[in-house]
């Protein structure tokens, strides 16, 4: 296993390099001359060709792509993601400044998703075909059919605008996070519930569940301690996936709720073609994703004794 972990860590290298290549390519492929954009942030000033040429050579844009990438990558390793075209600040610093907020949001949404996914999923199976199951199913279908930003608008309308129960937007107190967390986790919670339920039901059909039932275990215990470990891998993959993607998923939510996280940074970057910022964003979400997935993989390997303990049949 120790070896396994090392191998997995080693396998991260090409992934990270791949992500960096894509991020880099984003800047290269995208229309627009970085030199010019850098010179003309407000769009009110036309730089002269000489100025552009000078900046191009300063930015190394006149060199072959490979060299550019190498240079860019070197800077990357030093934690230098370049400076934003739009406000001239170092991208790395800006991302770091905004990251905690997004992580906070992501973390709370993730926890909510985990909890509701596992809890309601299990509950639905425990009360299979009874009213809690039906109710949960209904809730899941409604949540899944409701576009995320609608939920955001609706929540704002009802809870904040008409009732003043919660602040509409911004940061500060825990209350500020309630609505963004809810919206961010709604759809995924629904999917997680669904998947947990389906996965559990599948397990419940396995012969060893018959044996477990023969022990007279309480329904809840039966589902939670006997079927859940088997049903977990797909759910975990989903949750990990979600956590990994959550940094990229908060784009619209952050802008609606006026949360200055990296999602709203990305949106600004998109609209202003601020490629260093976008590159930084892609890198950071990509890396985060990869790390999370590594964790999930290791976890599910730990949970699967056959893989962990070498019962796996090798293919000849």
């Amino acid at each position, binding site marked *: 296993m120790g070896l396994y972990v090392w191998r997995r860590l080693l396998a991260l290298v090409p992934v990270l390099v791949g992500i960096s290549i894509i991020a880099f390519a984003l800047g290269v492929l995208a229309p627009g001359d970085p030199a010019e954009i850098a010179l003309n942030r407000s769009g009110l000033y036309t730089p002269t060709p000489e100025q552009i040429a000078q900046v191009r050579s300063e930015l190394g844009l006149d060199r072959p792509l490979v060299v550019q990438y190498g240079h860019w990558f070197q800077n990357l390793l030093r934690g230098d993601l370049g400076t934003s075209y739009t406000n001239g600040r170092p991208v790395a610093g800006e991302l770091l400044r905004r990251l905690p907020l997004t992580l906070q949001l992501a973390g709370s949404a993730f926890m909510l998703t985990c909890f509701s996914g596992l809890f309601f999923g299990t509950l639905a199976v425990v009360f299979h075909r009874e009213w809690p199951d039906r109710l949960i199913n209904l809730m899941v279908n409604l949540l899944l059919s409701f576009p995320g930003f609608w939920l955001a608008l609706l929540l704002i309308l009802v809870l904040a605008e008409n009732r003043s129960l919660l602040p509409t937007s911004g940061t500060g107190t825990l209350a500020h996070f309630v609505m963004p967390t809810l919206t961010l986790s709604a759809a995924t919670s629904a999917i997680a519930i669904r998947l947990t339920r389906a996965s559990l039901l599948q397990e419940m059909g396995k012969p060893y569940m018959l044996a477990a039932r023969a022990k007279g275990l309480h329904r809840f215990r039966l589902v939670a301690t006997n079927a859940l470990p088997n049903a977990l891998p797909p759910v975990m993959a989903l949750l990990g996936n979600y956590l990994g993607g959550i940094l990229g998923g908060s784009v619209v939510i952050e802008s609606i709720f006026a949360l200055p996280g990296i999602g709203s940074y990305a949106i600004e970057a998109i609209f202003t073609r601020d490629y260093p910022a976008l590159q930084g964003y892609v890198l950071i979400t990509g890396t985060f994703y990869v790390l999370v997935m590594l964790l999930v993989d290791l976890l599910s390997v730990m949970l699967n*004794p056959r893989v962990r303990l070498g019962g796996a049949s090798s293919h000849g």
Partner: protein
Amino acid sequence: MTASSHFHTKEPIQPVMTPEAATDAHGEAATDPPHLTLDALAVDFHLATGPVRAVNGASLTFHHGTIHGIVGESGCGKSVLGLSLLGLLPPYAAVTGRIHYRGQNLLQCRERDFRRLRGRSIGLIPQSPQDSLNPVVPLGRQLLDALWHHALPRSEKQSLLCRLLNQLGFSSPASLMQAYAFQLSGGMQQRVLAAMGVAADPAWILADEPTKGLDQISKEQTVQLLKTVTAQSRRGLIVITHDLPMAAALCDQVSVMYAGEMLETGPHTLTTPCHPYTRGLLASLPEKGFQPMAGKPPALGTRFTGCAFSSRCPAAMARCQTQKPPESRPKDAPRQKVRCFLYA
């Protein structure tokens, strides 16, 4: 106290006393001994290809405190009968008749009542060991699960299990408890299941082929354990098996099943067989000549009017084809109950 310190203690285990066991232990006086009585039990599976009647009107009483063996043709409905006692048949199985237990008819139980029964009153040692162990839950947890309704501290449960496993021939129960099902050989899985069934210490244990795939020593250990459990705390034991010598040695009563019906029941079934089928069965033992019976059993879906065995019976008479033989007691073996016109 660690589990491994019990390695070589060979003292027989003291099964935990459930409230039920306690009353039983004190109580010959118990007004309602927890016998299990089957009354015209029938199980039908409604399949797309037609109905299958796996158990066909079996009536039988399992007496508490005794070991009752069920032997018979493979596929004659033994496991189905067992599962019907626990209410574990699939929902498309239609169970009719009655199962009396402690004054109630189990067939009218709801799932919840059944759940209370399972493990506490009737425990199961399932037939297919590989199928019956959860592949991703360590064996220790599964074993502990069997003890869930005992209010014992975890460590005590663990040491109890260790002793049990020890008795079944596992030299290091502690490491076994950490292992997973796939790491065990077939025989080991079989014994783990046996331990699981016994550990819960239910009033009744239903063991479905508990000794198959076991070598001689393990088989003896398992049999010994089952015996001890029934004898010491007066549990009831139902053993389904194909191992006739073992059944003969272990059981107080043996029933012979054939095509969903009980052909013969009694204490001497395997020593002084009455029914032709039982005799044929014994004759197929390797040491008794290894001669199979001719023919094959009838399809379970069809309703035959006569004796189920009549088509293969060497002593078949004309009415065997048309009439069901009544249950009768042969004169020379009055404690046997046989369904055959030979004794009618």
